[in-house]
């Protein structure tokens, strides 16, 4: 555990250190370049801000209105047919659309069923092996202002389904 902590804490400082040392050795105008890049960072962030506002309000409403719980209750009987653990369903539904609420739900699942129980392990694996798909697609497409995103949402959601099913399967096989 300590080793893992050490390695993960090392990653960022080491990356910056290596780049700056290389810059010094190769006589790059380091700070001028840093400023130039940082300015571009402001532009990119500002271009995605409106998307974030819109997206967060819609997702917040989806959760707080109770419609999401309704949908989850609706699909639960189907899950029993395919032997998918229904405890995981709220997480599976929220994972692609909201990062912060999926963390909250995963934590809740681990609290209720035990961190080291099979359900807890499955929830952890899902959190680690998938991303907040909708958010990623929204910011990656809005920063360049494309209108047509073709089939990216469908494929990404399909990949999420594969990820969640694989997580459940892997945890069941390994435990």
């Amino acid at each position, binding site marked *: 555990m300590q080793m893992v902590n050490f390695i993960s804490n090392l*990653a*960022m400082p080491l990356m*910056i250190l290596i780049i700056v040392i290389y810059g010094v050795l190769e006589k*790059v105008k380091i700070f001028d370049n840093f400023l130039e890049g940082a300015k571009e960072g402001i532009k990119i962030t500002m271009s995605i801000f409106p998307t974030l*506002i819109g997206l967060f309000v819609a997702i917040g409403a989806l959760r707080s209105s109770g419609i999401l719980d309704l949908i989850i209750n609706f699909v639960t009987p189907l899950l029993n047919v395919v032997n998918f653990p229904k405890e995981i369903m709220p997480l599976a539904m929220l994972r692609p659309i909201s990062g912060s609420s999926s963390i909250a739900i995963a934590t809740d699942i681990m609290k209720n069923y035990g961190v080291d129980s099979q359900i807890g392990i499955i929830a952890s694996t899902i959190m680690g092996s998938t991303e907040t798909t909708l958010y990623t697609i929204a910011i990656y497409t809005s920063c360049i*202002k494309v209108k047509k995103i073709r089939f990216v949402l469908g494929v990404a959601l399909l990949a999420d389904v594969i990820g969640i099913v694989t997580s459940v399967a892997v*945890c069941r096989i390994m435990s």
Partner: protein
Amino acid sequence: MLNIVWPIFVIISFSYGIFSGNLENLNSSVFNSVNDAINLTISLLGTMCLWCGIMQIANKTSVIDKLTKILKPLIRIIFPKINTKIEKEISMNMIANILGLGNAATPLGLKAMKSMQEENPKKEILSDSMLMFIIINTASIQIIPTTVIAIRNSMGSSNPTAIVVPIWIASVITATAGIIITKIFIKLDKKEKK
């Protein structure tokens, strides 16, 4: 996408909220969400400036060339038609993702998207490389899944890192499946246009 998804989300959740009498929650969630978006943007602004600045330095050195060389065979298979500048930016994004530096991966990824847009002949439509790039970024491949380990640790797990191997297996399978499905869809899309 959001032109379709956003109104659906708003209409179903607001009308359900009104009918189910869940109005107080709905009202407070609107303001909370706006605050969340602002908080995220402010923290993103910081990391974005930092990493775009660091990346700009890195671009002037040979360190990226060296890192890109390691990932080149893989990138060549996944992205058949991109120039070396984009190749570099994509590999930096991948490295940040693999190292679990989500804060760095997003800025680097957005930068790569901008460069790909410059090469994109049809500015209104996502190019094949962009599609593939987004799919890879929606799959999360990292050596050490720090967030999950931290959560498990805080909840008193007897073995917080027990999920590392299952996460590796699940994320590699998911990413591979995502890449293959995207490749197939790109091919089908081309055939349709012909």
